[in-house]
């Protein structure tokens, strides 16, 4: 019967559900009223079961069966899906009875409107099939919503409850998370009132957790370390080899950015206990010191490290340089690095990093000691997949090195931020026109970029497209506060390339 791909598990479950419903309809326990006739509403209500032959004859061609209605509903956002349960009995049964429409509930777009009753009804629709739920900042939810959520969800893998603190007090968070301990892989608790004790409980119970985001919380992160230590203690007690337990630590992604209390004890603990960590974000963790960062070289699987805004002054004989050299030597998979306002990032260690690591995302903001030498090294390195470069407010870099960089990475570079630099001028445009993968470019506050250059860029990009057949990917350009650019040039750029480009242009 099912016309849809036999290999599509969604449709298989789908067809099974529909068959179930069909047999229920035959038994008369579910009302099959796809399109009862307009002219006989009373009869429909009283009889509760219009003769389906009658209906079929008069509305032939208009009667859409369950699987088609559900296929249509699948294209609708959650708000419309829920709304359609109020159309008629049949639709209500079909839509509510198809749990696969409700397995991934991203309800953050409805944060201002979603009520507790609404949420409870959505959770009920999903039933045991609920796999992912995001309730960030859903202001109207009260505790009954969370208790309904917590029971009977053996498949819940993703939970995001950022910004929820009114209706879910800090003590309740570990309890809620604990209900999903056997399946949870991703947990987001940004800006909640979770504390280190709560984190310890969470890390101890959720042994499959791969991604944890507790940025902007009042924690020192030591709770995470204590949680892992407790797991090890229990392993020792049951005579399991400790190295195996550590090697099996599931955590891959950890974000503790903007937590001012996160410091060295956290870094030291994580470096020893989370060997599988791939992505670590400690942006603006003001209690971290360079000596703690030195331990990061132990995380051999680290692909991404965001150290923006952390303290990098030399202390106890350890300098940021030394740290970066050790990272370059040990982290063979490092692809993302980020520094900002870091006064102590010099060329030499950066050149080591670009020569030894397969970098694809390089973020330097307000790094006053980075010069053209680093950029030249980046351009000449073996790196083939450079995707995102930020060189915002880096006054010691120069245009020539960036031009070389653009030339060598024109087949991969998608995102470029050169904002706030006086050395950026029109010379970059001919080569920029050949960067056909480029999606976003930011020239905000670059006072030496002129309207003439912008127009040249548009013309040459269009010509390049014609010549090579490679479509440009450009969709966003930042030109805020560029003193030498007029509204005219900004407007011309919008369609000048041959495809619509959003130009962010404000002039004070």
């Amino acid at each position, binding site marked *: 019967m099912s*016309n849809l*791909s036999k290999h599509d598990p969604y449709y298989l479950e789908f067809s099974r559900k529909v068959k179930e419903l069909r047999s229920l309809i035959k038994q008369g326990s579910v009302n099959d009223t796809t399109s009862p006739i*307009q002219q006989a509403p009373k009869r429909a*209500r009283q009889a509760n079961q219009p003769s389906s032959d009658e209906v079929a004859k008069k509305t032939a*061609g208009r009667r859409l069966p369950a699987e088609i209605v559900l296929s249509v509903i699948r*294209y609708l956002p959650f708000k419309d899906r*829920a709304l359609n*349960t109020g159309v008629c009995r049949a639709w209500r049964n079909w839509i509510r009875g198809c749990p696969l429409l409700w397995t991934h509930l991203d309800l953050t777009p409805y944060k201002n409107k979603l009520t507790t009753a*609404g949420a409870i009804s959505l959770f009920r629709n999903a039933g045991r099939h609920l796999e992912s739920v995001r309730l960030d900042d859903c202001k109207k939810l009260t505790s009954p919503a969370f208790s309904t959520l917590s029971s009977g969800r053996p498949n819940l893998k993703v939970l995001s409850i950022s910004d929820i603190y009114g209706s879910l007090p800090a003590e309740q968070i570990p309890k809620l998370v604990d209900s999903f301990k056997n399946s949870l892989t991703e947990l987001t608790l940004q800006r909640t009132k979770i504390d280190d004790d709560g984190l310890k409980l969470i890390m101890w119970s959720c042994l499959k957790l791969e991604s944890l985001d507790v940025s902007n919380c009042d924690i020192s992160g030591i709770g995470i370390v204590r949680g892992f230590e407790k797991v090890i203690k229990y392993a020792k007690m049951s005579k399991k080899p400790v190295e195996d337990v550590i090697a099996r630590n599931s955590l891959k992604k950890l974000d503790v950015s903007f937590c001012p209390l996160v410091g060295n004890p956290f870094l030291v603990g994580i470096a020893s206990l989370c060997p599988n960590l791939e992505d670590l974000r400690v942006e603006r963790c003001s209690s971290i010191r360079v000596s703690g960062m030195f331990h990061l070289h132990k995380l051999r699987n680290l692909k991404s490290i965001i150290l923006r805004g952390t303290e990098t002054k030399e202390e106890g004989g350890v300098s940021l340089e030394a740290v970066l050299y050790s990272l370059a030597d040990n982290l063979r998979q490092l692809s993302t690095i980020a520094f900002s306002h870091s006064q102590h990032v010099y060329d030499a260690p950066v050149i080591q990093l670009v020569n030894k690591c397969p970098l694809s995302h390089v973020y330097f903001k307000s790094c006053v000691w980075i010069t053209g030498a680093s950029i030249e090294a980046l351009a000449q390195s073996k790196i083939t997949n450079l995707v995102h470069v930020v060189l915002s407010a880096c006054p010691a870099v120069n245009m020539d090195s960036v031009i070389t960089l653009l030339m060598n990475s024109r087949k991969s570079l998608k995102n470029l931020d050169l904002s706030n630099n006086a050395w950026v001028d029109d010379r970059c445009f001919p080569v920029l026109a050949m960067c056909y993968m480029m999606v976003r470019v930011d020239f905000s506050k670059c006072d030496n970029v002129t309207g003439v250059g912008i127009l040249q860029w548009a013309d040459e990009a269009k010509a390049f497209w014609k010549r090579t057949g490679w479509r440009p990917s450009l969709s966003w350009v930042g030109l805020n506060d560029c003193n030498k650019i007029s509204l005219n040039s900004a407007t011309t750029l919008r369609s000048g390339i041959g495809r619509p480009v959003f130009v962010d242009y404000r002039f004070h």
Partner: protein
Amino acid sequence: MSKTVRLTSSDGQDFNVVSEIANQSVLIKNMLEDIGDNADDNPIPLPNVSASILQKVIDYATYHKDDPPVPADEDSKPKSSDDIEDWDRDFMNVDQGTLFELILAANYLDMKALLDLGCKTVANMIKGKTVEEIRKIFNIVNDFTPEEEEQIRKENEWCEDR
């Protein structure tokens, strides 16, 4: 020389279609495999598809004959319905009765791409509409009791705009 297939609509009209195009319908493709080489002699009856709809289906299949097969999708996140090509949008710009007939035909003939297109079109029609408007589109009568309506309204309060 590619084979042609004879298809007969519900109202008795015959259509000769190149088998490569006809095979976009999994139903027809399977039937042809079952019949084997006798396809030329035996027209395939399609009792659920009228001639006018069958013609439209053939037009669609002809335009899309070189398309790669539609991948099966396991995602249960809301799928995008904004990516309808211009030709497809014009093709679907028909009266509602025809639209529904096309969807039913695509369902019967097992043509995923056309079915998806039809469903996307209908989804775009009902997105953002109120329950009453949706009932009108599908010619559906409200068969809830007042108490049920009240319960549903409370549950779905968050869905309403303003």
